[in-house]
């Protein structure tokens, strides 16, 4: 296999990239100055080597614990639970939230065999010390996200912690990651007890 085929086949393993797009990207990289292509390669290498899961909240970060877990200016009494690390940027970018985060690593899905044991639930429960007053469940407004929120309420509420869910207004079936900041901030402000 040539190096061109090699790179194209690596690209085609990425989500949403088919064979044609993989070759289009490869040929684009052949046209740009070599140092630019090398910069991309180094960025990928550095990311793969340095980025890890935070052992407290499972966010992706170069430091462990991550910058959210170690920031003393954040509200230490609230944990916002999200499905994926990429949701943190969307919520934090909305400006409506200054507390801590916890990344579940997915949502409950019978068809994929993903139950509570496959998600970062035990580590969430372990974080519920006397300081934590509220857990905001910010799973996606989908049927899977709803089921996951139902489950979290069931296991968190008996620990004496208030459990809230983002307000409706986020489109059902949509993706938190792609909602705009204003919508997220409104959903946060209008969160309700479960």
């Amino acid at each position, binding site marked *: 296999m040539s190096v061109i085929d090699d790179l194209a086949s690596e690209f085609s393993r990425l989500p949403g990239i088919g064979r044609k797009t993989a070759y289009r990207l490869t040929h684009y990289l052949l046209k740009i100055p070599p140092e630019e292509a090398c910069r991309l390669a180094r960025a990928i290498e550095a990311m793969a080597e340095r980025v890890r899961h935070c052992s407290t909240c499972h966010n992706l970060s170069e430091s462990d614990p991550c910058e959210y877990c170690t920031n003393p200016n954040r509200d230490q009494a609230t944990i916002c639970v999200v499905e994926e690390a990429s949701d943190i940027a969307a919520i934090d970018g909305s400006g409506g939230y200054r507390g801590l985060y916890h990344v579940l690593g997915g949502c*409950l*899905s019978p*068809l994929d065999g993903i*139950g*509570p044991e496959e998600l970062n639930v035990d580590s969430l429960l372990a974080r519920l010390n006397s300081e934590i007053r509220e857990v905001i469940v910010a799973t996606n407004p989908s049927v899977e996200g709803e*089921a996951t929120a139902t489950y979290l309420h069931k296991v968190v509420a008996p620990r004496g912690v208030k459990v809230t869910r983002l307000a409706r207004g986020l489109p*059902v079936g*949509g993706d938190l990651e*792609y909602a705009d900041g204003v919508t997220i901030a409104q959903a946060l402000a209008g969160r309700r007890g479960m």
Partner: protein
Amino acid sequence: MSLVTTFATILKTYEYSETSKILRLLTRDHGLCSVIAKGARRPKSRFGGLLEPFTDGIATFYAKEGRELHTLSAFELHRERQALGRELARYAAAGLLTEIALRFAPAAPDAELFDQLGRGLDRLLAESGDVETAMLEEAWKLIVHLGFAPSTERCSLCGRQDEAAEPTHFDLMGGGIVCERCQPQAEKSSLRELSRAARAELVTLVRGGRGDGRPLESARAQRDLLRDFVAYHLADHRPLNSFRFLEERLG
């Protein structure tokens, strides 16, 4: 390229690219189909928030000859079942029914299978009695419809009528109960013990169930038997993912 309009139930959704979703549909007129819903992940998508598992609607898509992935052009909501996500027993049960359809629906259109799945999901939403019993009844209806009814009144090896009031064994390999005389011929790992109650309840389940929401006495045994039977006869000996989910502590 032809434009297709058909009743469809969304079985599963996958994220695809930054803005699109791929849907696995059970359709009434075209069997199992995969369609891409372009832009469906955008918050202001023209599909709205309808493209969710367990949702029924009228799907319109361009079916391309020889292609496996069609392009969804419209989805007119008929019935959403979002509430299944608000109770884990119902959610897990709905997962099992859709997984059976997703894995075992024939390539040819099967309108009765489509209707049966819809009735099953509706029942899981509305059931005021025991949800697990409703799940077992509705799952067996799908399996029997798919042509995998086990033999529950005659020995699956010799065909003799077996005394229904007695405890017996179920032979996964043989696909039904086995009489005492044939039992030594069956492979041990393939045999499951059935108590008198479990046997009587299995007969009822395979005939369509009681449908009254009263809990089964042998619910746990029935769930395990269903898991093993489906794994053995339909799924290359591997249990369906939904059973793994059901076995986890769901709070």
